[in-house]
């Protein structure tokens, strides 16, 4: 896959002296969904803002579709739609008019049929004549998405698009994003819901303190860091593990009712068969057995802890 955005050694230090980005280099592939994760203040919004022309970088280069974002800003920005983190709207405008306005700013000819399709896909068509101040927070956020899509961008930036959006709507929004991806739109989203990245992303980048700590295919990432936990529920509580079971990597729960075992799901030998065999050999009655996959959330927490 060819890259549509190339970021080289991008850095930003705000006038206040805050270093928000410290040399980020990455390629964003055409048609992918890239999720950027990172704690508050990591530099995610700064990164997006620079690419969209809202913040001036202090170092490095960025090209969008081969156009330098500073020298070729017109061509670069034409390809981009941005859904900002903060909701800012003209509260006395109607939904339809504000989307038309965005389209006009990008120099596109009026096309109400296209805008209708966008509004319908975001379940906003019924609200097209409503004033923006009459909308709920979730609707306002969807209006921001409609505005960002108004000129048919090839790249869409979503800065925490689902913050403050209820679960149903979040799923609907994911569907919208997937549909856009199916149309070939490249999507870069930031989120604090790891579930979202896990659900949506092709690749995951983790930013912390202005540095890109890691950029990996999501499935590889889940594999590489994915651990499984086997939990064995015991029929009778135990105060300590019998000697034969000790030393196998088992941890007894404080209540003595279960023991857990971590293993790498990718390893050839997980050691589970031997473990369960040992339980039988010792005559320990097992009530139930469960396994769980560690989530991106665990991976994320571990990474940030390890790399800090």
């Amino acid at each position, binding site marked *: 896959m060819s890259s549509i955005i190339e970021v080289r050694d991008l850095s930003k230090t705000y006038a206040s002296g805050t270093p928000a980005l410290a040399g980020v280099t990455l390629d964003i592939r055409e048609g992918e969904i890239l999720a950027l994760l990172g704690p508050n203040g990591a530099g995610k919004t700064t990164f997006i803002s620079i690419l969209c022309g809202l913040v001036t970088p202090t170092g490095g280069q960025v090209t969008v579709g081969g156009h330098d974002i500073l020298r070729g800003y017109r061509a670069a920005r034409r390809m981009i739609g941005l859904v900002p983190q903060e909701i*800012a709207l003209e509260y006395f405008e109607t939904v339809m008019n504000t989307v038309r306005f965005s389209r006009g700013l990008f120099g596109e000819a009026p096309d109400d049929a296209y805008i209708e399709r966008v509004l319908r896909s975001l379940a906003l068509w019924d609200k097209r004549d409503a004033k923006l101040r009459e909308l709920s927070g979730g609707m306002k956020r969807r209006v921001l998405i409609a505005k960002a899509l108004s000129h048919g961008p090839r790249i869409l930036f979503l800065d925490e698009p689902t913050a403050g959006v209820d679960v149903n709507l979040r799923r609907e929004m994911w569907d919208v994003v997937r549909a856009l991806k199916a149309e070939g739109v490249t999507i870069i989203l930031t989120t604090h819901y790891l579930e979202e990245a896990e659900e949506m992303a092709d690749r995951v980048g983790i930013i912390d303190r202005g540095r890109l700590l890691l950029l990996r295919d999501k499935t590889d990432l889940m594999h590489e860091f994915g651990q499984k936990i086997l939990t064995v529920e015991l029929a009778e509580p135990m105060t300590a593990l019998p000697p034969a079971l000790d030393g196998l990597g088992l941890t007894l729960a404080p209540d003595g009712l279960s023991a857990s075992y971590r293993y790498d799901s990718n390893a050839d030998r997980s050691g589970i068969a031997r473990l369960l065999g040992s339980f039988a050999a010792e005559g320990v009655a097992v009530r139930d057995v469960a396994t769980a996959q560690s989530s991106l959330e665990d991976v994320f927490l571990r990474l940030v802890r390890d790399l800090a």
Partner: protein
Amino acid sequence: MNGRAILTIFNFEMARFWRTPWESLAAPVVSTVLYFVVFGAAIGTRIQSVEDVSYGAFIVPGLIILTVLQQSLANASNAIFMRKFVGTIHEILAAPISFIEVVAGFVGAAALKSVVIAVVIYLTALFFVDLPLAHPVLALILLILTSFGFALWGFLMGIWAKDWQQLQFIPMMVVTPLVFLGGAFYSTAMLPPFWESVAKLNPVLYLVSGFRWTFFGLADVPVAASVLALALFLGLGFVAVWAIFRTGWRLRP
């Protein structure tokens, strides 16, 4: 050049004006009528005429310039300041447009509003006084350039201002005094020689004088000086906006 973007911004800014034409026009017209009553009627009876022009008519060009300056500054600075304040400036900054399009849209709309108001004041004045208009085309050109120039500076103020106080500061502390001392209500020839030379340092005097010349053919300063002052004023404003967009000052951190 992104002509559609200019039109989009321009139409957006004008929409409110057309939507509530009454509110947009009533305030400036009412205050003009008040000036007529206070200055024209009260003082006009004492000052019969200024250089053969009745005092009531004499003050009209100055009144128009006064209103144009206030309206241009206020409209343009509010438009951009509100966007900064609410956060919708993002949209403008992320759009594929240069400062030329932004200025043409915002400043053009603010200037047009002023021109419309100026014309309405002129028409209102016709009810009160006999008002010759010696050079109508030149009058309109000067009016448009003055409106645009002050809208440009208003736009700059809107970018500069960090809060509402700052937004009010320059119009109140600088512009209104300059206009009142700029010969809107008197000819500098009526001043003692010392104050006459002080008044000639006031740039607004050149605008008022030039504009008044297009009505009555009489001026405090040479017309060429007026045109030069206007050109300088416009040019400086344009360079300042260009520099701001180039450096991102108070727009792009």
